[in-house]
């Protein structure tokens, strides 16, 4: 059985952005953070941060948790350790390698 690669936002695509990596770097240090906490100290607007959090959420790397009235975001390393994410990455490498082969034999 081949592993299905296109279920949600691929983990690899979710990680391929510096803002999102910096959000993960903040979240993976400890407690869940609110959007306001994540926006503080960043150059970006609350809307932009929210958009990035949604991408991470869609890849399963972060998930929302409720604390009273507040919506917090927590880091979940599982998708990055999973074989699916690894295959995405190797698959991406093959796309590039085969594109080079195509250019090579067709020139």
């Amino acid at each position, binding site marked *: 059985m081949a592993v299905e690669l296109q279920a949600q936002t691929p983990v690899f695509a979710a990680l391929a952005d510096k803002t999102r990596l910096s959000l993960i*770097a903040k979240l993976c240090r400890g407690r869940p953070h609110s959007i306001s906490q994540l926006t503080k100290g960043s150059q970006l607007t609350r809307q932009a941060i929210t958009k990035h959090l949604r991408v991470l959420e869609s890849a399963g790397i972060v998930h929302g948790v409720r604390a009273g009235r507040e919506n917090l975001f927590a880091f979940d390393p599982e998708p*990055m*350790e999973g074989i699916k994410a690894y295959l995405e*990455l190797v698959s991406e490498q093959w796309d590039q390698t*085969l594109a*080079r*082969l195509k250019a090579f*034999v067709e020139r």
Partner: protein
Amino acid sequence: MDSRIEKRIELKAPVSRVWRALTDYREFGEWFRVKLDGPFAPGRISRGHITYPGYEHVKWEAVVQKMEPERLFSFTWHPYAVDPKTDYSKETPTLVEFRLEKTANGTLLLLRESGFDKIPSGRRLEAFRMNDGGWTAQMKNLESYVAQKA
């Protein structure tokens, strides 16, 4: 779980041309970005080093499995074996197969890499780290976090 990657790509070149690009070690090296020490031969270890910018320190090693002219070229290797301090030889390698089929316009290439279920999970995270050198530090943070948690 038999997890694998499969790709199919149409090449506008005759099968004989594609076969040469796959199995001539110098031609292979050009598009794969690896400098190989010598020709491929079934059952033989192929050695060399990566020429992809930023990965020149990485050694290439694969064991050629099958060379069925203009049909099938396959080898086993350790994907993302990029850390010089790690001994990958004890890990089960993956199998890479290139199959060629003649088409009206050229060649259909079917690539399959299989055996990923045997890759240790720690290596998967490492692969993410290595994928972009610029983000290595951040990914290291993640890795140590994950290691603490485990």
